[in-house]
């Protein structure tokens, strides 16, 4: 049927054809595979980052609320380590006094250690701006948490809608008072942007109710002891006071203490803020009616996420809202 020459010729052509196809396949397949892999896992292929990262968290003060932020930051570090294989160190550096000059010193010292990113809860946006700009100028990523970003500074911020949080608290108090009565506001640090926003929004809600009268705004500088003194003095001079709202986490604990000492538990309503264990205890005891709490762990988590993204050259969203919860006595189990 076939002579040797014919067979040899035919086989040789087929062989060359197969070999050529094989070579082409060998050359093309890795490229196709690489493309497919890139389509499936875009993030892991872009891990061109370093083997280790160090992020510094600078809160406003040494306080339990900020410890929760730190816990969230640590969770984010674990996630990044698991996902990227890089070592992530979270350095938590809190000012010993809640003063912007002291916080600026901490920020300067943090810059001196050349971290990959700094997250800060600014005590005073105006007085912090120059130092934060200095960090950016030195190529250090900056993310703001628990506060809007200072004007003129192009950085991402993580927080919640402070105005809405305050309005929920004020509306709750108005509702509990039957839309009439005398109320007072306890403000934390007047220069802190989030505290100022909350007080403004409390007042906006109260202004919508003609039978609600705001008799005063006290300042506690984020101190429980000072909140207690201020609240006691204000209740002493205004015995008809019916209710309190506050602008930060220390305020309600001091106000509650003053309410207890004045023997006005149940008579003077308190809508607190945040979910410190003391706050939850006060709701359980009936000294406080409720609390509108943001989520510090989530803020810490997304802050570190944003810093990491920046380190990878990815621009995080300008603003991330981590939400709030209204904690009442019947929902306490969900938060304890």
């Amino acid at each position, binding site marked *: 049927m076939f002579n040797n020459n014919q067979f040899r010729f035919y086989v040789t052509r087929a062989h060359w054809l197969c070999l050529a196809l094989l070579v082409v396949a060998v050359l093309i397949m890795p490229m196709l595979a690489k493309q497919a892999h890139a389509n499936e896992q875009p993030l892991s292929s872009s891990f061109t980052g370093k083997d280790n990262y160090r992020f510094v968290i600078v809160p406003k003060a*040494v306080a339990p609320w900020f410890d929760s932020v730190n816990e969230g930051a640590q969770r984010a570090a674990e996630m990044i380590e698991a996902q990227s294989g890089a070592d992530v160190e979270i*350095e*938590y*550096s*809190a*000012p*010993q*006094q809640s*003063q*912007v*000059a*002291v916080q*600026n*010193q*901490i920020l*300067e*010292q*943090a*810059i*001196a*250690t*050349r971290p990959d990113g700094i997250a800060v809860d600014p005590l*005073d946006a*105006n*007085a912090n*701006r*120059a130092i934060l700009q200095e960090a950016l100028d030195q190529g250090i990523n900056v993310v703001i948490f628990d506060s809007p970003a200072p004007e003129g500074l192009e950085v991402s911020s993580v927080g919640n809608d402070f105005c809405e949080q305050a309005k929920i608290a004020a509306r709750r108090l108005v509702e509990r008072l039957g839309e009439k009565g005398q109320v007072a506001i306890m403000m934390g*640090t*007047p*220069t802190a942007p989030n505290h100022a926003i909350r007080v403004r929004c409390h007042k906006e809600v109260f202004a919508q109710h003609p039978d609600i009268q705001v008799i005063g705004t006290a*300042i506690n*500088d984020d101190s429980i002891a000072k909140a207690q003194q201020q609240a006691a003095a204000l209740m002493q001079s205004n015995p008809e006071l019916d209710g309190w709202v506050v602008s930060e986490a220390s305020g309600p604990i001091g106000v509650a203490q003053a309410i207890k000492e004045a023997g006005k538990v149940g008579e003077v309503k308190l809508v607190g803020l945040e979910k410190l264990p003391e706050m939850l205890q006060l709701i359980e005891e009936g000294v406080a009616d409720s609390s509108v709490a943001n989520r510090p762990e989530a803020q810490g988590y997304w802050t570190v996420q944003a810093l990491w993204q920046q380190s990878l050259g990815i621009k995080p969203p300008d603003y991330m809202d981590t939400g709030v919860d209204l904690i009442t006595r019947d929902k306490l189990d969900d938060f304890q």
Partner: protein
Amino acid sequence: MLRKLMGFMVSNPLSGVISVLVIILVSASILSENFLNSYNLVIVSRTLAFIGLITIGQSMLMILGELDLSLGAIGGFCGVIGGIMMVNMGINPWLSFGLCLVIGTLFGVINGLLVTLLRLPSLVLTIGMAGVYGGLNLVITKGVAITGIPADIGFMGSGTWLGMPVPFWVMLVFLALACFLTLKTPFGRYMYAVGSNLPAAQMLGIRTDRVRVGVFAFAGFLAALAGMLMVARLGSAQPSIGDSWVLGPIAAAVIGGVPTTGGIGTPLGAIFGAAIIGVIKNIIVLIGVSPYWQAMVTGAIVVVAIALDSISRRYFKRD
């Protein structure tokens, strides 16, 4: 060589505090590679400048056997007054700066007059005056910072000259002036005489009240200067400026060899003491000590520094 070193240690009252400072500086540079970087050294020197100005004034008062716990409040209040003058009243920033220094001096004079005329212990009186100045500060500001400080004076707080912060140079100038005043003038000799033995100084015909009021005035001036430099640094007049300038300068002066009982020590020694505290505070942040431990660690190291200086004094019998 060793004999020369021993001779220096015996003869120089500052050798103890300088030795402690050197030990801490060496330890700091070993503990953190970032300690010796130029940016960090600028930070340390700038921080030292503000607390140093208060320390100079406080140490001169301590040489007299007096204390002024209202210096921080004077600094904060003068800063706020300066902010109001510049922002709300539109007065020229440099003129406002100068006027605030005059006002700070007047506050110092008031403190001095109250102490000398009413024969009151300065410790108790100045606790009260701190409340007065701090309270007036809150009344005027309602706790809210004054923003929009003109950029003209920003250089005084944030600028650098020859690589070092301007406030640091300002502090060095007034340190030199204070050292000259205390060590090279009759006024300085009167200060030591008043601090060592007030009745004896009066018997010698020294106008002790004038000397005391004069030093209170100078301390008030330096407090106002520190306050205004901080306003220039922050770009806003914060009501809380000076809140942390109360105990640190006293501890610094004691570390630097100025006892609260008066009669000995120099402002230069006090500045070395302030530098020790400043470096300790810097290094515990650089090496990442937990914020909950920082106050305890700082306090413990300060106690060790005072103890080392005291032991060296007894060993070399310098005083």
